[in-house]
């Protein structure tokens, strides 16, 4: 009898799984993965798109640009989000797997520099940042930048960075340190944009960098100057669009080859005014100047 019961239970379970599976299969799934910088807006797009096309489901996961690009190279996603352009080496690796990555610009982001609320700094230059974060850099104390941070013991700078495959990390290296210079060893390599803000908020000695969309009232955002003579520019969306802000960067989505069918429709929708207004609403700059109704 026990065996019979077991058999019945097994049949019902298999049936249920089969039923759920066919239900899911009836809808088109778009796998979307990558950049932590983009994950919030990607989720907002996916949710809004659900109302436009209920039979297309977009599954969004974060993890970092490296994750998205790796998934694209391995052929496990339809759309990879990245806050940096793919490297030639990565494109070659993808080609080896018979994948032809195609780049689509979906927005701009300003890379903001964050310090603790109590930090008296009023602006920072790219050279100062490079000397703090770069290999063999000389700046190790806040006093070298002419400030004393209250609550920061020893005045030593606590450098907060990102894991070495994050798009933000690589963009920072290219834009601030220069391609030939590595990061200093001993930075705190955190695993998400939000973690950077959280740690800066709690650590008086800290400095960190992150996408503008993660700005919070609990931390201080430093205006950045291109060099000693230039006037420091506030990290805002308007300054990112006008390219006045020195470390603004494009945000991409990648497809395998020319996008087709549902993926193409989704990408076109993202680039449309409706999609781009969501981009702006989430704290990123749209790809072209548009007028969105303020909510």
């Amino acid at each position: 009898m026990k065996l019979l019961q077991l058999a019945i239970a097994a049949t019902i379970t298999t049936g249920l799984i089969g039923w759920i599976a066919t239900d899911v299969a009836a809808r088109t799934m778009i796998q979307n993965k990558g950049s932590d910088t983009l994950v919030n807006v990607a989720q907002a797009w996916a949710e809004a798109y659900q109302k436009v096309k209920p039979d297309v489901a977009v599954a969004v996961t974060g993890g970092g640009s490296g994750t998205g690009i790796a998934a694209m190279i391995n052929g496990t996603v339809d759309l990879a989000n990245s806050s940096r352009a793919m490297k030639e080496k990565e494109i070659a690796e993808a080609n080896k797997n018979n994948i032809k990555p195609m780049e689509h610009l979906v927005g701009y982001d300003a890379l903001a520099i964050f310090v603790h609320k109590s930090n008296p700094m009023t602006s920072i230059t790219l050279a100062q940042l490079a000397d703090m974060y770069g290999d063999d850099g000389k700046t190790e104390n806040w006093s070298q930048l002419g400030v004393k941070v209250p609550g920061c013991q020893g005045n030593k700078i606590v450098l907060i960075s990102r894991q070495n495959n994050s798009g933000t990390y690589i963009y920072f290296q290219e834009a601030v340190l220069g391609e030939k210079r590595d990061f200093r060893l001993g930075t705190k390599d955190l695993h998400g944009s939000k973690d950077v803000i959280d740690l800066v908020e709690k650590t008086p000695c800290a400095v960190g960098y992150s996408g503008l969309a993660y700005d919070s009232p609990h931390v201080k955002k430093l205006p950045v100057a291109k060099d000693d003579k230039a006037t420091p520019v506030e990290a805002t969306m308007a300054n990112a669009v006008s390219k006045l802000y020195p470390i603004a960067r494009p945000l991409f989505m990648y497809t395998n080859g020319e996008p087709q069918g549902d993926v193409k429709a989704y990408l076109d929708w993202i680039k449309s005014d409706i999609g781009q207004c969501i981009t702006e609403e989430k704290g990123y700059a749209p790809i072209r100047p548009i007028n969105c109704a303020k909510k």
Partner: protein
Amino acid sequence: MTAHSAIQPTHVTVGDAKDKNWYIDKSFEILMFICGISAIIFVVGIFLFVFKEGLGFILGDMNFSEFFLSQKWRPTSLNKATYGILAMVAGTAAVTGLAMLICLPISIGAAIFIAEFAKGRTREILKIVIEFLAAIPSVVWGFIALSIMNPLIINVFDVPMGLGVLNSAIILALMAAPIVTSIAEDAFKAVPDTYREAAEALGATRWQTIYKVILPAAKNGLLSAGLLGVGRGFGETMAILMASGHSINIPTSVFDSFRALTATIAAELGETAVGSPHYQSLFAIGIFLFLITFIINMTADFIVRGVRKG
């Protein structure tokens, strides 16, 4: 099953062993055998997989002296990728060492109390509560490290950041405590009661009995408890990833940040292209970790076996 055939004797032909029940019996025997050896199959399979993925790096890009003697871990560097794990090995070893310094006295003390002093209810409640510590998921420990220990260490010791060796070691000590306590308790229980009776007959106090008789007799068991704790320390990932500050740095003080070997794999593996040197180098770290924990666990196992025989 024999009861079943007794009810329906007409279906059983005497002398013919291969009836329905025989087949059920046999198939279950085979099923159980497969379950029994599956552990071996999995271990071998995992080892082969990890080894296969890492082998390309070990034979190709890996430079042994750089791997073990350089602290420059820059697998994604734009000019020259370097793969040095010295800082991570030092960090992992430092935190495991400190964690054991904190954990062993507490755990062995707890084990002595449970095995020698506590009676009845107290003993049962203590055992359950200590085992409950082991049921807390490691990511929850990580949260405790980030949100409670971090500000606490900053305030108490007046240091710039509370994520580092001390924070991780305290968390790790608490995580290893249940295992170490229960193995140490087993070791104390394994000491024959005749030893205690003999000590008492000689007029030894309880403390003298524990200190002079039971501790030396349980020495091997305690050593293996410590080794398993060390194995736990080397293998713990999530909590350490959150508590360590994740920074490539050879720690020189207990407040320094560091980076664990396991945490490096966890943080970076998802972001590498399958088959790239970075991916393979992470598997090479995996092989290294596997060997270390394998050696530690084997040593602990041999010592325990020594205890059982003696």
